[in-house]
């Protein structure tokens, strides 16, 4: 019975001592110890966060590089393609131009030939005419001795003239 | 029988109950730990707390026995 009855003296001293212990330890020990612990944990957390951030940035940077490389590659590709296009266009243009030039030259030549031909024909005609007149003169001079012969000649000449 | 003898029997009965209870908690906790070793720590601490609760009931009995003895 005695064993399970709280005694006044010990209760009294325990209350006082425990309160003093609580206050003293709280001020002297728990505050600095818990403060140091949480400070350190905060520091570690901050460092971890920073590392994570750096890692993320690094990944971003890598992705950027990759993107840039991709872009450059694509640009090169398009440039090459353009150049190729330009080349083929230039070639075809040159071909066309040459063709046109050639056609034009041919056409000019043809017209020149035509006009030369015409000129030659007309010259030939006039030469033939003078020649004929000369021949005729000579013949006339030779034949115009008799009248019948003259007439016959005129007639035959007229017939010939029709053929032309 | 004296009052002390009865108190001793009472204490003994209280111990039987607590023994069964704590034994069951311990056994099931072991089972759980074997099944899920990854939460071993959590199971151990809650098993201890539960054992403390069971034990408290038995200790009430013991204290009553002490009061009489």
């Amino acid at each position, binding site marked *: 019975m*005695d*064993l*399970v*009855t*709280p*005694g*006044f*003296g*010990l*209760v*009294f*001293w*325990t*209350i006082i*001592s*425990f309160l*003093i*212990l*609580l206050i*003293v*330890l*709280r001020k*002297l*020990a*728990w*505050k*600095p*110890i*818990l403060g*140091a*612990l949480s*400070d*350190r944990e905060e*520091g570690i957390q901050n460092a971890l966060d920073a590392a994570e951030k750096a890692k993320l940035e690094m990944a971003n940077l890598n992705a950027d590089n990759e993107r840039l490389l991709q872009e450059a590659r694509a640009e090169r590709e398009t440039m090459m393609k353009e150049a190729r296009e330009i080349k083929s266009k230039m070639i075809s243009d040159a071909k066309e131009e040459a063709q046109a030039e050639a056609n034009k030259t041919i056409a000019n030549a043809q017209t020149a030939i035509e006009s030369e031909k015409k000129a030659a024909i007309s010259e030939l005609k006039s030469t033939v005419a003078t020649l004929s007149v000369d021949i005729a003169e000579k013949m006339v001079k030779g034949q115009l001795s008799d009248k019948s012969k003259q007439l016959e000649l005129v007639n035959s000449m007229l017939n010939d003239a029709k053929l032309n | 029988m004296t009052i002390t003898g009865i108190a001793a029997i009472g204490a003994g009965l209280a111990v039987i109950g607590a023994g069964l209870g704590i034994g069951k908690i311990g056994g099931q906790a072991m089972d759980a730990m074997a099944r899920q070793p990854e939460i071993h*720590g959590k199971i151990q*601490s809650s098993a*201890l*707390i539960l054992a*403390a*609760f069971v*034990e*408290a009931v038995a*200790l*009430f009995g*013991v*204290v009553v026995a002490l009061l009489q003895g």
Partner: protein
Amino acid sequence: MQITTLRHLVTILFLLFSITSFSAEKSDGKDEKFDAKKMIMHHVKDAYGMHIVTLNEGSPEEKHITLPLPIILWTDNGLTTFMSSEFHHDYNGEVIVEKNGGRFVNVHEKVYQLESGASSVQYDEEHHPTNAAKPLDISITRNVFMMWVSIAILILIFSAAARRYKKSTNNLPSGIASFVEPIVVFVRDEIARPMIGETKYKKYMPYLLTVFFFIWINNIFGLIPIFNGANLTGNISFTFVLALFTFIITNLSGNRNYWKHIFWMPGVPVPIKIFLIPIEIIGIFTKPISLMIRLFANITAGHIIILALMSLIFIFESVWVSPVSVFFSLFITLIEIVVTAIQAYIFTILSALYFGMATEEAHH
């Protein structure tokens, strides 16, 4: 180096334990038959003065080595103080000390004041004094003394640890701080945080840490034989005070939700609500009472078992029982060393659990 020192220390402590036990029992069983219950109760209960060892037992030069402690009484004539050595190790009410107009006797480590006409103590059949009354007694008993020793040691250890942190530039523990830190972190991360919750646990940390270490160190002191059973944590007055603190803190920090669960349990029909009110009100008190009883009964039971095993030698009056007794009491002592930590843990975690229940927010 340090480990071997520790090992020597432990060995010495065990040796001392056996010496003090023998001496105490012999002094009890000097003339009459050895009474195990009487011896055990004297060890488990509080006492005036710290009896350390008895030399030359049974011979005329018998000598008790005792640390006398002050007895402080509040009587009708005011404050009365004298040293416990004035009783000359008597606790059977034979030595009468006259101080400040009153006459005092020590009956089973309780001071009684004799009534004015009485010259010696009279007992009734249950061995209670009939002609003496107990004055208000606030003596520095051996439990109070050991409590102060433990408080001094705690303050020394933890202020030294705190200084270590202040000295270091990056808050790293060194020396005694690296011994203390894992336990503090354990109390914080395994007890306070899961039981109270991340947002509120900080407020309760000083109390939980103080209670944990206070109980633990006093549990350990109870096992150290040279202190001769300074059974502080196995004393119901001590556990009563700690449970009282937990009770007060729980109910002072109880929020609306907590009181609502006691007086108007949500989510149950009205008749059951009314039925639950008295149960919940009893529950407020049974929680700290169970805390009080658990610590007291666990530690006291441990002491009783160890002493009972030792008493077997004297009950059987045979030296051949001693190996068995020593082996079993050693075994129980080892278990008790584990129990010192477990009971401190249980008391702290249950206090934290009650604080957590008191501050829990409604979750629906």
